[in-house]
C-alpha cells in the first residue's frame, strides 16, 4: 500500500492545486467550507464536481448541474470494469471502498504500472486512492476557506498538469501498433464532439466508445482475413 501511496504523490500535488482552485470556485457560489469537504469526500470525482458547480453557478438548475456532473462520470463504468482483475478475490466491502477512492489519476497510474509489473495489485490501487481522496478533500476544503480571490492559476500551467500526466499515462498504456487506429479514432471523435459544443463528458464517452468500435472492427476484419 505504501508503494502506491508514495508513487501517487506527484499527481496528488497537481490535484491539490486543482482542488484548491475548485474550492475557491465552490465557495464563490455559496458552498461553505464544510459543504465543499463533504462533497469532495462523498463524490470524489474532481472533474465531475467542477462541471456540476460551474453549471450550478451559471444556470442555478440543480438537476441539470447534477446530470452534467454525473455524465462526466460515465467513464467510470469503463474504469471500474477494467479493474475487475485487480479487485478479484477481495471482499465486497473492500471492493466498494476501492471503487469509491478510485479516481482518474490513481487508476491510470495503477494500470500503467501493472502493465509493466504484475506485482502491482489492489494494495497499490487502495494506497494511491486513499492519498488521492485525502488530498482532494483537504485541498478543496482549504480552497473554500481561502474563498474570495480566485487567482489566474491557469497562467501558471495548473490545468495543463493533468493533460501532461494523462499523456505520460497513455505512453504506459500503449500496446503497440494495434492501439494506433483505435486511439486515433478515439482522439478524433473526442475532438469533434467538443468542437460541436457538447460537454467534455460526452467527448470522453464518445471517444472511448468509438475507439472500442474501431478496435472491434479491426479484430473482426483480422479474423475474416485469417
Amino acid at each position, binding site marked *: 500500500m505504501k508503494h502506491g501511496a508514495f508513487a501517487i504523490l*506527484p*499527481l496528488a500535488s497537481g490535484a491539490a492545486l486543482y482542488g484548491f482552485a475548485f474550492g475557491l470556485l465552490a465557495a464563490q457560489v455559496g*458552498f461553505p467550507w464544510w*459543504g465543499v469537504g463533504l*462533497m469532495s469526500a462523498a*463524490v470524489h470525482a474532481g472533474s*465531475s*464536481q467542477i462541471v*456540476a458547480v460551474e453549471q*450550478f453557478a451559471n444556470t442555478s438548475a*440543480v438537476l441539470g448541474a*447534477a446530470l452534467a*456532473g*454525473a455524465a462526466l*462520470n*460515465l467513464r*467510470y*463504468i*469503463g*474504469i*471500474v*470494469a*477494467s*479493474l*475487475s482483475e485487480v*479487485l478479484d478475490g477481495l471482499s465486497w466491502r473492500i471492493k466498494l471502498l476501492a*471503487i*469509491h477512492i478510485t479516481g482518474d489519476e490513481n*487508476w491510470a*497510474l495503477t494500470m500503467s504500472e501493472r502493465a509493466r509489473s504484475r506485482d502491482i495489485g489492489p494494495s497499490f490501487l487502495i494506497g494511491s486512492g486513499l492519498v488521492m481522496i485525502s488530498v482532494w478533500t483537504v485541498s478543496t476544503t482549504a480552497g473554500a476557506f481561502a474563498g474570495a480571490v480566485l487567482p489566474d492559476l491557469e*497562467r501558471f*500551467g*495548473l*490545468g*495543463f*498538469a*493533468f*493533460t*501532461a*500526466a*494523462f*499523456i*505520460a*499515462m*497513455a*505512453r504506459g*498504456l*500503449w*500496446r503497440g501498433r494495434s492501439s494506433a487506429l*483505435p*486511439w486515433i479514432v478515439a482522439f478524433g471523435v*473526442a*475532438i469533434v464532439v467538443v*468542437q460541436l459544443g457538447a460537454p467534455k463528458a460526452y*467527448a*470522453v464517452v464518445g*471517444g472511448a466508445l468509438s*475507439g472500442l468500435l474501431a*478496435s472491434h472492427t479491426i*479484430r473482426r476484419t483480422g479474423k475474416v482475413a485469417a
Partner: protein
Amino acid sequence: MTSDHWILIAILAIAAFSIRVVGLLAGDKIRASRHAWMLDEIPGLIVVSLIAASLAGQPLTTWVAAAIALCVAHLSHHVIATMVVGVFAYASLSWLAL
C-alpha cells in the same frame, strides 16, 4: 448552504457511486464473456479521450506544450518528468504568447 446545495451534493454522490458499482458488476460479466478484450482496450481509449477533450479548442501553445510532453513521455516513460517539463513548457509558451 441551501437545500439546492444539499440536493446537488446528494445526487452527485449517489450518481458517482452508482456508476462505479455498475462498472464493478459489469466488469465481472464482461470478464466471463467473449467481450473480455474490451477490458484491455478501455483504459488507453479513455486516457486518449481525456487528453483530446482537454486539448480541443485550446490555442496552439497548448498543443505545442502537449507535443513536448509527448516527446518527454516517449523518451523517459516517466510521469513526473512529463508533468514538470509539460507544465514548464505550457507556462513558458503562454508567457511568450502574451
